[in-house]
């Protein structure tokens, strides 16, 4: 079927989401809201050291405490090897096993060591204090540049840098080196009239989902297990648990709870395998939740970065060459998003010569997890800051400079792909035309713009639809709904069937009730799972047409589906969905539609942001005065939730730019593991966030969807920093631009000027 934009009845409207009422009344069940009869409470003992060898763990006193039913340590875990496909990236199971429970060394403050299940949470907490752990404290390293030095404390004796030929003979903290690009950058820089080269740094920041990790797990004596938990993908939880614990996938049923935010951070396991181990040992269901402190110390965050960016251009504004080195801190185990940073950061530009080098570097912090457009915000901060400075040096409007050099259809991206239909220039044009961009600024106020790019992905999705006897439709899919995707799924199905959206009820099934679905991540759900829902609905429509043909005794080729009913030329009255559904038992049984796909053709997202700030020169505080986000969504299925993604990404990016950072003591302990000291934006920190949704349809999706979730966090870091520069003339090359740091920079600037 083809869908013409002007004729859509449901797609593009703003119905109330089907799961909405449960979520405003407190009925919705999140990870910690499920309980079971006979349930125990599990708690985890965590390392107080940033780096230490475990010389011994004595759990005997803890085990002896009345009410304690099970204690587990890393020694209880089977040795894991190989890797698991987590949808967006592969997960190294040996590392994951050691992250879930340390085996021989603790590698960061908060690293899990042992776990206890007891009859009450209070007893479990008491018992933790009775576990005796011997440590040989080792020197630690937190900073990525320090960690790369030859004399840095080594996290893993057996780590030899990948990506260097021949492989180095001495181990180091550099897990991997990668180089991408094309053309001849030396030649390109030689042709440049102006070259800007800068080094920039960002701090580790957490995804900051408000819901701490939580689960309930139960395992029967025959080895069959059920896990209730909130995650970005019940299938990845099942697969990681079963592989870590040597179980068969069919024996682990994961039931997805509502998820209280993830942003990439809930695409792996922390508590779930431990809860299963405790349940196995105790023969009781076990509930585990993290405190906020545990969430900060032991989950997420995303990489700190240290980045060198160099861009050259001719006097008439054409970029001749671009190069960068990105050094990303991975935390305790390899796997920073430096690869995506290399691939995404220059993607908004049409370049002839580009060379990008990336280093994935381990440090004594929690193993980083995906965070919304992983790697791209850091890289864009560096690139877009240099682009801003280059435009200024050339005396060009920064939007004009970006448009002149902007990626477009046919542009070869640094990572090798050639762009098909993309909306980069459309975003820049809308930026230039926006009243915000033309408005005036007052004293100590400044304006910054920045562009951003994210690939978006497709991947594996399965969906089924069932036609109920009364003509209503049940849609079953397998992706946890973090931002309103149930609404989008119901709307797309309603559009296909030609019925009101309220006649379609979506549900998110557990791992035993539908085939595999990749995680809710990569901005893929509305695109890929949406495509599966559309195809499953179309499959059901074909069944409905066959049944109508049977009821009429005509050929199915003579039946058309329109406005929720079957029509044929020889009959005046159509057969509605409800008419056909009511007769399903007589025409061949229940009517269903199915689709299992590996969706290809995800459409890249481009975006440009405009940010106005006012700087308080006395305190160094930065106020966001006005913010406009412009993004190509391809097609907005439910515009409110598209706008919401854009607004939320902006808020997270503003927090990253201005306040958020992991602060470590000299001992390597996180000093701000709480929302009071890890300062995320609150309502009074932000203005309304204006959005402009550009729709350059993705030809690979039936409605033109590209995916919107990640791109909006890419530009804000640079947009804010560029605005601060415009306000006070100071280039902030280190994030966050916290008041003390900005004040010091303003003072240094003043001193230099005097």
């Amino acid at each position: 079927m083809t869908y013409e934009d002007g004729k859509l009845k449901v797609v593009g409207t703003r119905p109330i989401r089907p799961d909405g009422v449960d979520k405003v009344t407190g009925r919705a069940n999140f990870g910690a809201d499920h309980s079971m009869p006979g349930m125990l409470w599990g708690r985890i003992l965590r390392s107080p050291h940033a780096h230490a060898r475990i010389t011994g763990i004595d759990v005997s006193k803890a085990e002896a405490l009345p009410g304690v039913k099970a204690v587990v340590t890393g020694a209880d875990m089977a040795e894991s090897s190989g890797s698991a496909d987590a949808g967006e990236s592969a997960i190294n199971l040996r590392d994951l096993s050691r992250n879930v429970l340390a085996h021989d060394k603790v590698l960061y403050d908060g690293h899990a060591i042992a776990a206890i299940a007891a009859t009450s949470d209070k007893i479990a907490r008491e018992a933790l204090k009775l576990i005796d752990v011997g440590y040989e404290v080792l020197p630690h390293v937190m900073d990525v540049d320090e960690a790369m030095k030859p004399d840095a404390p080594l996290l893993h004796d057996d780590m030899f840098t990948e990506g260097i030929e021949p492989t180095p003979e001495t181990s180091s903290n550099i897990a991997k080196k990668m180089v991408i690009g094309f053309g001849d950058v030396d030649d390109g820089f030689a042709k440049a009239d102006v070259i800007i080269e800068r080094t920039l740094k960002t701090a580790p920041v957490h995804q900051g989902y408000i819901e701490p990790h939580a689960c309930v797990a139960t395992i029967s004596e025959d080895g069959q297990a059920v896990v209730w938990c909130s995650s970005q993908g019940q299938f990845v939880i099942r697969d990681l648990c079963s592989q870590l614990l040597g179980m068969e996938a069919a024996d682990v049923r994961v039931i997805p709870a509502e998820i209280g935010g993830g942003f990439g951070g809930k695409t792996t396991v922390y508590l779930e395998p431990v809860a299963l181990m405790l349940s196995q040992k105790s023969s009781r269901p076990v509930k585990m939740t993290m405190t906020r402190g545990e969430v900060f110390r032991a989950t997420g965050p995303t990489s700190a970065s240290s980045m060198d960016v160099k861009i050259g251009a001719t006097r008439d504004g054409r970029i001749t060459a671009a190069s960068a080195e990105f050094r990303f801190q991975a935390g305790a185990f390899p796997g920073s998003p430096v690869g995506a940073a290399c691939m995404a950061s220059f993607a908004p530009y049409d370049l002839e010569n580009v060379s990008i080098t990336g280093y994935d570097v381990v440090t004594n912090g929690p193993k980083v997890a995906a965070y919304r457009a992983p790697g791209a915000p850091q890289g864009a901060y560096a690139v877009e800051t240099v682009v801003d400075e280059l435009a200024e040096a050339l005396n060009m409007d920064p939007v004009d400079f970006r448009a002149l050099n902007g990626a477009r259809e046919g542009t070869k991206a640094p990572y090798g792909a050639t762009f098909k239909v993309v909306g980069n220039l459309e975003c820049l044009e809308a930026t230039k035309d926006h009243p915000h961009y033309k408005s005036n600024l007052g004293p100590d106020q400044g304006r910054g713009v920045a562009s951003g790019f994210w690939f978006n992905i497709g991947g594996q999705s399965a969906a089924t639809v069932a036609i109920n006897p009364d003509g209503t439709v049940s849609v079953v899919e397998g992706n946890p709904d973090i931002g309103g995707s149930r609404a989008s799924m119901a709307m797309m199905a309603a559009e296909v069937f030609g019925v009101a959206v309220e006649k379609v009820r979506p549900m998110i099934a557990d791992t035993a009730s539908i085939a595999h679905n990749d995680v809710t991540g990569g901005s893929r759900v509305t695109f890929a799972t949406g495509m599966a829902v559309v195809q499953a609905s179309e499959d059901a429509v074909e069944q409905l047409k066959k049944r109508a043909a049977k009821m009429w005794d005509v050929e199915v080729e003579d039946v058309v589906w329109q406005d929720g009913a079957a029509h044929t030329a020889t009959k005046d009255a159509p057969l509605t969905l409800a008419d056909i559904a009511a007769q399903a038992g007589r025409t061949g049984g229940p009517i269903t539609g199915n689709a299992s796909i590996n969706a290809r053709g995800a459409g890249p997202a481009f975006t440009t942001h405009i940010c106005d700030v006012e700087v308080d020169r006395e305190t160094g505080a930065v106020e966001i005065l006005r913010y406009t986000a412009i993004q190509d969504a391809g097609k907005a299925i439910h515009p409110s939730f598209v706008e919401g993604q854009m607004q939320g990404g902006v808020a997270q990016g503003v927090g990253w730019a201005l306040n958020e950072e992991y602060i470590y003591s000299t001992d390597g302990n996180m000093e701000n593991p709480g929302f009071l000291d890890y300062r995320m934006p609150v309502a009074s920190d932000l203005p309304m966030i204006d959005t402009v949704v550009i729709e350059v349809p993705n030809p690979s999706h039936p409605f033109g969807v590209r995916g919107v979730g990640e791109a909006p966090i890419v530009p804000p870091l640079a947009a804010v920093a560029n605005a601060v520069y415009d306000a006070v003339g100071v280039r902030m090359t280190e994030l966050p631009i916290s008041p003390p740091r900005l004040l010091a920079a303003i003072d240094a600037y003043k001193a230099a000027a005097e």
Partner: protein
Amino acid sequence: MAKQHVNTTINGDPVEFLCEPDQTVLDVLRDVLGLTGSKEGCGTGDCGACSVIVDGRLSCGCLMLGAEAEGREITTVEGIAEGDKLHPVQQRILEEGALQCAFCTPGFVVAAKALIDQNPDPTETEARYWLAGNLCRCTGYDKIIRAVMNAAADVRGEAA
């Protein structure tokens, strides 16, 4: 120490419970009474996901002991709608799409109701500062603030 015996009123109903001396109102609501609409995001009064109204005052359930509920009237998110009629704050949050993951939503519903009860005509700035104790990581607050302003207008009987 022995458990505490507490008589209180929750969402208009008399409630009697036993709790540990160190259990919070939030612990009692969630783990003793099964009212899991109030959420724990931090346990330190920084996120507002456990917002409840105690004797007319907006409070964090995680910062108040269960024993302190004795003789008080507590309203939780489960008690904001009247029968099958949603409170204007709930209705407007749905209409604006002012929820994404919705983990913070119960806290915002309770806090916004408390705001409008006290000040049915808040400015946007007043609403932003009142709700500054409620963290949302998904929405950037834009649609939440719009929903609360529209709900206040509904309560005043004005067309928003």
